[in-house]
C-alpha cells in the first residue's frame, strides 16, 4: 500500500474540507476492511485477505449512470457494443448512487450543478472512486474563462483518474478505467489536491458583502456552495 506517501497538500490553513480530511486520516480509509479492525493481529491472513478484497473490488465495479454533457455520449458508446466496457468488469451502469462504486464525471460542471454532484457523490457508499472524464473535469476545458463553470471536478470532489480529451475517445475511457482497476487492485489511492468548494451551512459562511445581501433569501441552516471565482485557477 502506498499509505506512506504523504498526499500532496498546498496551503493547509486555507483549506479544510471534510472529504479531504477523511482521506488523509492515516492510511486511506477506503481500503481498511472491517476484518482488519476486528482481528487486528494475525497479519499474515489479513494481508492476503486485503489483497484479495482489493482484487475483487477492481474486478467488479459498478458505475454510476451519470451523464452531464458531451462526454456522456462517448461514455454511452463505451458502454454499448463495439467498446463494451462490460468486458473489463466495469460495465453495469447503476441508476442509483447507493449502488455504485465508481462515478465517471463526464462533462462540464457549472455553478448550479456542483452542489448536486457533491450530493450524489456523498450518497455513494465507501469505498468509492471518481474518474474525471474530459478536459472540463480537469480545468474547465474550453469553458475555463466562463462566468459559470467550475474549473475542474477536483474543486468539488476528489478525483482518482483524469482522462484528458474533448471528449476522450471510448478507448481512452477504457484505458482510464483499466488504470483505475489496476490501482484499486494494488490498493493505491490518489493524492487529494486542493478542493475549495464544499457544501456548508449558510450560517457558517464568513460574513461579507454577498452573504449580507443574500441573508434574507437564504436560511441560516440551508446548505450552500460558495464560489470564490477570483481564487480559481
Amino acid at each position: 500500500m502506498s499509505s506512506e506517501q504523504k498526499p500532496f497538500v498546498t496551503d493547509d490553513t486555507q483549506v479544510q474540507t471534510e472529504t479531504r480530511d477523511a482521506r488523509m486520516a492515516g492510511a486511506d480509509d477506503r481500503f481498511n476492511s472491517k476484518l482488519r479492525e476486528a482481528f487486528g493481529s494475525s497479519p499474515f491472513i489479513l494481508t492476503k485477505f486485503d489483497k484479495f478484497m482489493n482484487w475483487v473490488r477492481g474486478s467488479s465495479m459498478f458505475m454510476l449512470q451519470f451523464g452531464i454533457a458531451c462526454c456522456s455520449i462517448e461514455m454511452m458508446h463505451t458502454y454499448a457494443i463495439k467498446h463494451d466496457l462490460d468486458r473489463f468488469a466495469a460495465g453495469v451502469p447503476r441508476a442509483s448512487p447507493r449502488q455504485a462504486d465508481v462515478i465517471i464525471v463526464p462533462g462540464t460542471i457549472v455553478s448550479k450543478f456542483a452542489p448536486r454532484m457533491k450530493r450524489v457523490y456523498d450518497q455513494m457508499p465507501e469505498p468509492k472512486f471518481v474518474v474525471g472524464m474530459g478536459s472540463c473535469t480537469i480545468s474547465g476545458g474550453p469553458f475555463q474563462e466562463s462566468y459559470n463553470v467550475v474549473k475542474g471536478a477536483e474543486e468539488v470532489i476528489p478525483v482518482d483518474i483524469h482522462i484528458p480529451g474533448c471528449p476522450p475517445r471510448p478507448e481512452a475511457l477504457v484505458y482510464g478505467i483499466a488504470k483505475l482497476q489496476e490501482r484499486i487492485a494494488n490498493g493505491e489511492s490518489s493524492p487529494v489536491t486542493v478542493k475549495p468548494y464544499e457544501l456548508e451551512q449558510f450560517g457558517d459562511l464568513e460574513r461579507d458583502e454577498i452573504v449580507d445581501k443574500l441573508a434574507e433569501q437564504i436560511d441560516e441552516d440551508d446548505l450552500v456552495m460558495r464560489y470564490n471565482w477570483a481564487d480559481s485557477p
Partner: protein
Amino acid sequence: MSVEEQEPQEDAVQERSRGDELADLLGDLVISREEHLNAPGFVIRPDQVQETLFKLRDEAGFDHLSCVTAQEYEDRYESIYHLTKYDERTDEVSIVVPTSKDDPVSQTAEPVFRTADWHEREAYDLVGIRYEDHPDLRRILLPETWQGHPLGLDYDQDRPQIATLTEHANPLAQDSRGDEGNTMFINIGPHHPATHGVLHVETVVDGEQVVDLDPDIGYLHRSEEQMCQMGTYRHQIMPYPDRWDYISAGLLNEWAYARTAEDLADIEVPEYAQIIRTMGAELCRIASHMIALGTFALDVYGDFTAIFMYAMRDREIVQNILEDLTGQRMMFNYFRLGGVVWDLPEPREEFFEKIRDFIDDLPEALEEYHDMITSNEILQARTVGTGVLPPEVAKSYGATGPVARGSGIDYDLRRDDPYGYYDKLDWDVVVEDGCDNFSRLLVRMREVEESAKIIQQCVDLLEDWPEDERNIQANVPRTLKPDEDTEIYRAVEGAKGELGIYIRADGTDKPARFKIRSPCFSNLQTLPEMSEGEYIPDMIASLGSLDIVLGEVDR
C-alpha cells in the same frame, strides 16, 4: 456560385418593399427604422410591444417568434423580437425595443407568443431587462441566488457567488403543494436516467397523474454566448458550436455559425465545399436521430436492450465515416468560414465505398427498427395518442424541427430558407400529423431515409467532380472585421429544429453580441402542455420524444 449571388439581391429588393408595407401597417407604432441584414427592423416604444406584435401576428401573419435577443449598449438596453412565418420562412421582421439604462422595463410579449415566456426570462437572467406583466419573471439559467447579470456590460466575473442546495430540497419534506387534494411534489432530476442529461423537472402529481410541471434548466449553462463573444470570427468561434448540440450534430451547428458569419461578412462558399457540407451535415443528422431513437426506446422500454445497442451500432458506423472526413468522432471543427478545412480523405474511392456500404445497409437496419419499435404493440400502446401537441400550440411555443413536423407543421428550413446544396437535390420534407409521441418518432425515422437520399446524391456529385475544380475554401481575409452595427439573424435546420444565431458586429474582430436560438429551448417549453393531466410514464415518453439535449437548452 451564380445562383447564390442572385438570391441575396432578390431578397433585398423584396425586403425593401416588404419593409415599407409593414411600416404602413404599423403606422404610428414605429419610432424609427433599422435595417438588419436578414430583415427590416422597426424600433418601437417599450410599452407598445404587445400591440405591435398582435398586429403583426394577426394582420400580417407573423406567427413564429423565432428568437428574443437582449443586449446592453453603452446608453441603452435593447430587446429584439425576431419574427417570421411558418408558411414563409424568408419573410422576416425584427422588432427592436429599446429601454432606458436606469430603468430597463419593457412590456412582455408572453400573451402574444407563449414562447416569449422563457426567452424573456433568459433575457432577464443574463442581461437584466425586466419585463412588465410577465407571468413568472425569475432566473432561468443561473441559480436564484446569483448576483448581477453576466452579459451586462459592467458585470464583474471575479465576484464570489453562492448557490444553494436547498432550493428543491428533500421532496418528502413538502409532500403536498397546492391547496387541495393529495398532491405530492416530486423532483425528477437533475441526476436521473430519464431526463437525458441534467434536466430537473419539478413535478406535482396527484396519484399517478401530473398536475403541474415545471422544467428547471440551467444545470449545464456553460455560457456559450460569452465564449463566442470572446472569440474572433475567423477561427476561435467555430469549435464551440460543436458543443451546443453535442449529440454528434456538430456539423449542423457549425453550419449555423458558418452561414450567419458568411452572410455577415459577405463570403461566397465554393459549390464543391457546399456539397461536402451538405453530406457531412446529413450524416450528423442520421447520427443524432439514431441516438434519439435509441434513448427514446430506452425511456419507453426502460432497459439497455437491443434497440439501444442497435442504434449505437449504426451510430458507430456514421461516426467512423465522420472521423475519416473530419478527424474527430464528435467535436469536428471541420467547417471554416468560406468552406471546409480539408478535402475528402484519400483514397477517395475507399471513402465513397464506405458511405455507400452504410447507405446500402440502412434500409435493412431501418426495417429492423420498424420491426422492433414502431410495429411493437407495447410501444404503440405507450406512444400513440400520448403527449399530444396540437399544431396551434406548437406554433405558439415556437416549436420547430421534428417536434413541429410531428404535429403536422410543414416547416423545414432546408427547403423553406434554402442554404447549402439542398435546393438542388431531390428529397422530401417529412410531416406526420398525429401530433403525438409516435408521430415524432416516425418523423425522425423517416428523416433518416431522406438524409440517406441526400447523402447518396452528394456522393454521386462528389465522385464525378472534376479534379481541378475541387475548391474547398473561398479566399477569406485572415482577420474579419464586419462593419460596425451590422446585425444579422440567420438560422439553419439543426437536428432538433431551427438553430438560429444573432450577431451584432461592432467593428472589431469579435462579435459584440452573439445570441444562440436553440431549438431545444423552445421545444422543451411545450413539455408542460403535453404532460399536464397525463400519467407520469407518458410524461417520460413525451420528454424522450422531444429529444432535447441539455447542452443546447442551457447553452
